[in-house]
């Protein structure tokens, strides 16, 4: 079982690596949007600093959201979904491998890129640690919930919008706790409460999302 898990994860990372635009796309998207803020607000460093926690977080969320659709859709369309659904590997474990590969190729680059976005918004230096930590806990939640959304819409032609509508409400608490933690830090308060709730969300997603996604795949195959 372990072997199959790793092979599936490896394959997905390799496929993403070969189509590098999948990896760049969210980062370029973030960079383009963040340059609009000073232009649109016409404001100085102080205003940007105030909105920085929210903007960095929303950008990380939305740039990940646009990549979620393809987690299962590509496999459904080329038939390779059958190779692991029928492989005897428990479906929730296969979902975990898919989520893991998605996180490695989307979530991890987003975390590593976050300081660049934060610099452009003048986020105070002492908030970077909490920003990275909060994204480290939140990006796996994006990938995990993304598997559920992607599994639900995999046989639809234009399911991207539906996926956003389905997943956004579930990600709202993650945004509140994540951006909240960074905001509290910039205000000089203790972010631990927010971070603990974020960790709770992560554990919840890790345990429930694979089961939900597996059920969604089964429903769509019937």
């Amino acid at each position, binding site marked *: 079982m372990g072997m199959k898990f790793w092979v599936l994860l490896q394959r997905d990372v*390799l496929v993403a690596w070969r189509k590098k635009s999948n990896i760049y796309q969210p980062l370029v998207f973030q960079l383009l949007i963040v340059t609009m803020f000073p232009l649109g607000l016409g404001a100085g460093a102080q205003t940007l600093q105030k909105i920085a926690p929210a903007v960095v977080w929303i950008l990380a969320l939305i740039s990940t959201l646009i990549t979620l659709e393809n987690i299962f859709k590509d496999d459904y369309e*080329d*038939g390779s979904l*059958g*190779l692991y659904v*029928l*492989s005897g590997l428990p479906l929730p474990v296969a979902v975990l491998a898919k989520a893991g590969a998605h996180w490695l190729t989307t979530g991890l680059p987003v975390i590593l890129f976050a300081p660049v976005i934060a610099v452009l918004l003048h986020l105070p230096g002492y908030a970077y640690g909490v920003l990275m930590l909060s994204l480290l806990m939140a990006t796996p939640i994006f990938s995990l919930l993304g598997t559920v959304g992607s599994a639900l819409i995999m046989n639809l032609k234009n399911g991207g919008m539906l996926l956003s509508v389905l997943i956004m409400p579930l990600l709202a608490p993650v945004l509140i706790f994540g951006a909240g933690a960074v905001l509290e830090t910039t205000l000089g308060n203790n972010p631990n409460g927010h971070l603990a709730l974020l960790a709770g969300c992560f554990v919840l997603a890790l345990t429930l999302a694979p089961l939900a996604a597996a059920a969604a795949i089964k429903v769509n195959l019937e």
Partner: protein
Amino acid sequence: MSLNNLNPHTSLQSTILHISHAQCQKGGEPLFAPINLRLERGEMAVISGRNGSGKTTLLEAVAGLGSFCEGGMEFDHPDSPDSWLQHSHYVGHFLGNKASLTCLENLNFAATMNGSSSHENQLSAALDQVGLGGYEYHHAGDLSAGQKKRLALSRLLILNKTYWLLDEPFVNLDVAGCDWLFECISHHINNGGAALLTAHDNKRIHEKADHLIHLERP
């Protein structure tokens, strides 16, 4: 293209696939009248019917990628009746090749997912047999339609499965490819394998078939 490298069937236990009163549906309507089939090792069954009669839906349901709305199937195996997935392999219209992976990577993935870790030499030999020798490091997306089909079919040579479930396996193959595939399936049947397939307008395969299932409107 030789056949001597086909996997020998390690155990010769008799296993039987029973499909009884089975029906599949689409949009709440049954697609075809109930069908029955008893497929043993060494036998081949061919499903026929007009376009849209549910051939693919039936095959997917048997493979485990779909479901029956009425009736169902049972797998008779003396040791482990729940081992249908371990004994069957499905090659459908959507072939299961990843366009951005090479032929060798695609085949290796399929082999490992099915628990038959094969040496690179064996994988290359299988590609050689299906006429993809020299294409080991070509991306599957760059192959022609017929070559993509050959790549998918090469999985059958690597995975040691008794029941082959093939959806229109002859489509897109050239004349030599069709001849080879026919020989390959015959060889598999003669060595204690079994096949359930759909094939349009293929006289040879219809004559060779032990069971003909014609899907008709309910």
